[in-house]
């Protein structure tokens, strides 16, 4: 039983990683006042760019670089529409998601002729698991050994990076000048403007960070978690991340916990497949797979009243009359 739990938590970490990156990406964006429903598209775009570059250059790191570039480019398109031209954030975000969903498949068919996939990656073209020091030696120690060698050790570097990003984000948001201005611009851009700070430049910078984090999330999906790009492989992770962001009330640590909860449910769903529950029988796979989404809806419905986001989020900044 204990071992099962550890294994499920282990899976939770892997599944949560892209959610954490994406939710933190959304946190930077929304704290700055830009609604980012395009997280999904950025993840997918990056997943494709990373897998394609990794396949061609044979390096996961180069893949990661291309993934980030693709994602930042998409973020800049979003910024150009929403910040420079004061467009509707949702429309721009949905447009990005739609374009990316089609473009990734089209490009991969054109370049790789594999029915919309990229070549399977192996070796250096993937992020491989890292075994922490003494993991093998400690494996036999009761309790601690299992936690250390199974749960903590044996993940790829991006998983560790995701968890490290939470305190880093927290520090940036709450302890730095940039963070103070970022939070202010999402609450009252007029206050920022009258303090002599450029609202647009600040928001663009927030979107660049958002793009980088989404880029890592996408690269993780195609070059670490899987071994190549598949059509629609982001599978709603961007929307789940957005839900986690709202559920965590736009604060780094609660957002992490929300991501872990969603990840855990996902892990449970995988684990429960084919399991026979006494008195009920075998639970259909679909019923379990739907669990995280049902819970998301329920949690959001229950908590949305209390979740008050940044005040100026989604509203284009216009100087009065100007």
């Amino acid at each position: 039983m204990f071992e099962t739990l550890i294994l499920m938590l282990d899976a939770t970490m892997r599944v949560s990683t892209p959610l954490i990156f994406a939710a933190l990406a959304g946190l930077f964006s929304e704290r700055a006042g830009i609604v980012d429903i395009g997280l999904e598209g950025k993840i997918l775009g990056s997943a494709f760019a990373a897998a394609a570059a990794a396949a061609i250059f044979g390096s996961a790191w180069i893949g990661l670089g291309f993934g980030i570039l693709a994602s930042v480019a998409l973020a800049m398109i979003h910024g150009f529409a929403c910040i420079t031209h004061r467009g509707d954030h949702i429309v721009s975000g949905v447009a990005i998601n739609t374009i990316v969903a089609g473009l990734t498949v089209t490009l991969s068919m054109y370049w790789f002729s594999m029915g919309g996939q990229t070549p399977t990656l192996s070796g250096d073209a993937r992020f491989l698991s890292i075994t922490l020091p003494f993991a093998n030696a400690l494996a036999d120690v009761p309790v601690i050994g299992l936690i250390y060698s199974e749960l903590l050790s044996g993940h790829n570097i991006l998983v560790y990076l995701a968890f490290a990003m939470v305190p880093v984000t927290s520090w940036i948001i709450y302890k730095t000048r940039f963070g103070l201005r970022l939070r202010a611009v999402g609450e009252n851009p007029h206050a920022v403007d009258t303090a002599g700070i450029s609202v647009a430049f600040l928001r663009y910078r927030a979107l660049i960070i958002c793009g980088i984090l989404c880029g890592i999330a996408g690269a993780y999906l195609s070059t670490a978690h899987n071994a190549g790009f598949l059509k629609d492989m982001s599978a709603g992770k961007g929307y789940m991340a957005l839900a986690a962001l709202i559920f965590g009330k736009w604060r780094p640590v609660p957002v992490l916990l929300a991501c872990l909860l969603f990840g855990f449910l996902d892990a449970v769903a995988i684990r429960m497949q084919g399991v026979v529950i006494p008195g009920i029988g075998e639970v259909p796979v679909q019923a379990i797979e739907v669990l995280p989404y049902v819970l998301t809806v329920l949690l959001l419905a229950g908590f949305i009243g209390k979740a008050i986001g940044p005040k100026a989020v989604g509203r284009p900044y216009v100087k009065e009359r100007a």
Partner: protein
Amino acid sequence: MGVPFKADELFLDMTNKTMPYAIELRDISKRFGAVQANKDICLQIPAGTIHGIIGENGAGKSTLMSIIYGFYEADTGYIEVDGKRVDIRSSQDAINAGIGMVHQHFMLVENFSVLENVILGAEGGTLLKGGINTARVELQRLAQEYSLDIDVDAIVEELPVGLQQRVEILKALYRGARILILDEPTGVLTPQEADHLFRILKALKEQGVTVLLITHKLREIMASTDNVSVMRQGQMVADRETVKTNKEELAELMVGKKVRLTVDKDDAEPSQVLLSARNLSQFDEQGVKRLKNINLELRAGEIVGIAGVSGNGQSELLNVLSGIEPMSEGEIHIADQVITSKNPKDAAQMRDLKMAHVPEDRHKMGLVTGFEAYEAAVLGYHNSKTYNGKILMHRKVMIDECNERMAAWDVRPPNPHLKTANFSGGNQQKIVIAREVEQNPDILLIGQPTRGVDIGAIENIHEQIVKLRDAGKAILLVSVELDEIMALSDRIIVMFDGAIVGELDAKDADERTLGLMMANAYNEEKEGESA
């Protein structure tokens, strides 16, 4: 204009030579589309004085201050600070030039602490820690020097308005402002808080800070300023030394003497009371009392004009009387019915009681600008049997009627299918007024009937209003145009700060008296004369 003091005034002349002005504006103009918000503004403000800028709402005061603070760029003209020309293109430039501003609507991040708000934009480093500590010490010093005590760790939204304003002042001072602009600072304050604010401003002045006080309240100008400039319709019309002027003169300058509108009308013959409001009050969402115990009666065959500087409760009064907003206290008696907060009637029900309403803002409330004229011409009466079949509306009836009205009211172009947005202001207004008047109401509430309307249309609209009165209707006219009030009304009621502060027979009204009443300075003035 432009030079506020006569050259033969020795003392000021000396100031002029030995010390450059703290701030000097040269021929500042600013245009927003068709609106000339500021025209050739010149202004000189000696250092270390409190300078008042007074004018009606919409006179262009706030725009001018926004230009000084770099929020807007002037179309022409330039600004000098301490005798040196400065280019102010952004708020950052203004801050660098030592200019600070306390906005009418505070520019604060509400869920930040006082400290965070103060250092925003002046953090003094990449990390917050150093800046926060510096600010904590500096704020303590400022608090002692200017009696600006505040809990620096409090969250701004939990502070009362007076203290939030103090945060704004501290923000400016923390950035080293030597020139402080306050835009309508007392609008949101209680009298006690306002008094405290003026003590703070005096303390600032003693420390050499130059204060620009923007207001439309005469009392504040007289009580706290050294000099005062008057703005009207985007222009600076006068500069005075405060001790050498008085409320009457300022009121007259503010309101201005315009070309007298004349309306041919006989004396009114008011008969029975058609509407009476008793003790009517309304609170807004924040719990602020916007209407204060209004008592008024409307009689058949008279025009009652409500005068007042805009924003003193006239809009709320119209909204409550017309049923758009519920009242909080009091009652309205109309056509054998008593309307109270427990027994409210909405705008449609009020229309059924033969009360018509021409709203103040025709774009927001009077019309749907995307509608064609014939559609807009039935709004509010669109459920009437005249226009409706069992399922579909009678388009032909609506269009024919619209054609008739357009001819009768001289609406141009007389095209029922033109979108209302494409008519000029005057013609839009005619469509709205025709719609209400042609329903043959007993009572007509009419707000700003000629705002943005050209002269020809104004005469036409005025004639129609008088005609309606002569037909034995009761008319309540709300207008910020004193000329219009004086030309049309039989009886004039003056509102200030949500309350009725005076009532005059139109024959006894003159601009001076009304101006003083509108600034709520009439009684003080009379006391002053009798003393």
